[in-house]
């Protein structure tokens, strides 16, 4: 008798606990989902930020790691009296998007006033209605100093909602001692280099470059042409031509010599070259892909006035020079070269990866505009290659 009593006691205890748990869980899920719907998303007309007369208060910025020198933030704080919370929590566009999306869908930005994201991600966020338009009256430096070539990108023709932070090129990084003949993206498919090349795992970088090799203009490519190009990459993967798909961890493969060439980013090449002079960025004969990481103001951003004050501040060539000297990408600000020349920084001025001439980049193309649905489809197809 005693033992059976004990038995039912334990069973009912467990049952009660389980029922309570499920009830609580369902309740929480119901609460959570009401805010996760479509409100705040999907609108074509974005709102323009509302500015106050004078910038003050505090400002939170989300940027990529190692993308700013140590002095700019304190200098800005001193100059404006705005206190800056600068966080380096953007490690990849998709991951950052995954983290922010549930908040953005509710019209919140997690306290952030500025995100820095790559062109295609800015386009995607805009399409979902997660970004605000900028008030250009507070951005005279941007109006004046933004490089001509960056003023009308396909994803934001009039720069209504994005201001470039830094710019770079996607192209070839080659071990010139091991594969001096590689000059084009098409060369990467040469069976001579079987198993000795890495491609980027980002669909938006790799596929347009391979399109260029195929003679397709990435800006006008149909979904069909995207798929055809992905299929070519798939065949090369199955034949063992492509060793792996990487992020910028291709650096290790290049350094060890496990691969002789990769599709990679110019800024990495500047740094790799400093360690090993045999590693060089090569402008593919087909041209390169030009991308920018852009400052954008998300919906629900607190203190947009301070956010625009920051954008304006970093577009002063003197302030920008400080950042450019540290990061080694292409600066989007006119006049930085002159600042460097005055300082006698000849090496920086002469580096075509930091100050590319028009001649150097004449065949390059910006990241193609592609609808969210098409992007989803091609990304799925591409990832099924990457994750064979």
């Amino acid at each position, binding site marked *: 008798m005693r033992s059976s009593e004990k038995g039912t006691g334990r069973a009912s*205890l467990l049952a009660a606990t389980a029922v309570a748990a499920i009830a609580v*869980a369902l309740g929480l899920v119901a609460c959570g*989902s009401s805010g996760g719907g479509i409100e705040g998303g999907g609108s074509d007309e974005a709102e323009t930020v509302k500015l106050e007369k004078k910038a003050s208060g505090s400002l939170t910025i989300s940027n990529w790691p190692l993308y700013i020198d140590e002095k700019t933030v304190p200098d800005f704080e001193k100059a404006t009296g705005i206190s800056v919370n600068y966080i380096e929590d953007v490690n990849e566009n998709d991951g950052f998007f*995954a983290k922010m999306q549930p908040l953005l869908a509710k019209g919140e930005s997690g306290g952030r006033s500025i995100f820095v994201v790559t062109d295609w991600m800015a386009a995607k966020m805009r399409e979902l209605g*997660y970004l605000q338009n900028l008030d250009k009256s507070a951005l005279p430096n941007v109006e004046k100093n933004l490089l001509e070539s960056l003023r009308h990108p396909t994803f934001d023709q009039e720069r209504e909602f994005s201001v470039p932070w830094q710019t770079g090129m996607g192209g070839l990084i080659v071990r010139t001692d091991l594969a001096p003949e590689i000059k084009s993206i098409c060369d990467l498919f040469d069976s001579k280099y079987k198993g000795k090349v890495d491609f980027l795992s980002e669909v938006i970088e790799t596929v347009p470059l391979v399109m260029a090799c195929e003679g397709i203009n990435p800006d006008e490519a149909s979904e069909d042409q995207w798929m055809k190009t992905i299929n070519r990459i798939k065949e090369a993967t199955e034949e063992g031509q492509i060793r792996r798909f990487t992020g910028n961890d291709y650096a290790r493969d290049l350094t060890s*010599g*496990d691969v002789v060439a990769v599709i990679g980013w110019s800024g990495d090449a500047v740094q790799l070259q400093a360690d090993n002079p045999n590693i060089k960025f090569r402008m593919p004969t087909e041209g390169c892909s030009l991308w920018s990481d852009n400052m954008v103001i998300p919906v629900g951003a607190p203190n947009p006035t301070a956010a625009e004050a920051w954008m304006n501040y970093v577009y002063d060539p003197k302030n920008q020079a400080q950042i450019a000297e540290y990061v080694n990408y292409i600066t989007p600000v006119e006049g930085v070269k002159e600042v460097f020349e005055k300082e006698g920084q000849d090496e920086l001025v002469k580096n075509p990866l930091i100050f590319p001439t028009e001649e150097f980049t004449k065949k390059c193309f910006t990241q193609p505009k592609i609808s969210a649905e098409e992007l*989803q489809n091609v990304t799925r197809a591409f990832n099924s290659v990457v994750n064979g």
Partner: protein
Amino acid sequence: MTAVRRRLSPYLLLGPGTIWLVFFFVVPLVYMVKLSLESGLVGNLEFNWHWKNYSDALSLYDTQFVRSLIYAGLATLFALVIAYPLAYTIAFKAGRWRNVLLFAVIAPFFTTYLIRTIAWETILSDQSPVTDVLKAMGLAPSGHVLATGGAVIAGLTYNFLPFMILPIYASLERIDERLIEAAKDLYSSATQSFLRVTLPLSAPGVVAGTLLTFIPAAGDYINAQFLGSADNQMIGNVIQALYLKQSDYPAAAALSFVLMAAIMVMVLLYIRFAGSEALMGEEAR
């Protein structure tokens, strides 16, 4: 008063654990179930009992699924083959070196998992002496070791080895040595006493070790990402890409559930086969 308190005490004792489980396991789980039955693009997801996510998960990613189970199974097997003699030596033969050896087993944990795996990338790179030796032994038919399935399995084996060694060691160490002496007194050979006394008594450790190795290995994606090529990606890589690259949350959630269910079924069958008393030790007998 005391009666009430006695009746309430089990609830109170279970409280912290239950709250923890509800908030960090049950709630996310229910949320994931709901997510896995939604369809549409991110930002416009709609809950509509979209069971197709599940059939898609199985039909689109069956290759990676089977591959994951094979890789995890082989890694578990290799880990067992390496771990048992090692644990045996530490438990019975190490003498005063026992603590040093145990420390050596645990020492890799002082470095993060990620760094250890990236270190393997260097160890197995094409120019490394290790690769030269493996090539000379004819173990690298494709001419390289890194970016092959072998490298992924080796990485898995290495990374989960301590989870195999420690439970086996713990169960061996608990064995009353007088039992082995008794077997010898009864004229059993060393082999017989091992097979009939030591091995059965260490079975709980073996079962626990294989589960602790197989379950996380089947869902792992770090090793495949760094040590494998496109042909060696596991189901974890697919889920990661679905979630973080494609923003296809419903598909990722459905696939996670399929993986969870598959592993659960396999584990239940295994425990059934191995006997739950083996898992729980003598207490359950």
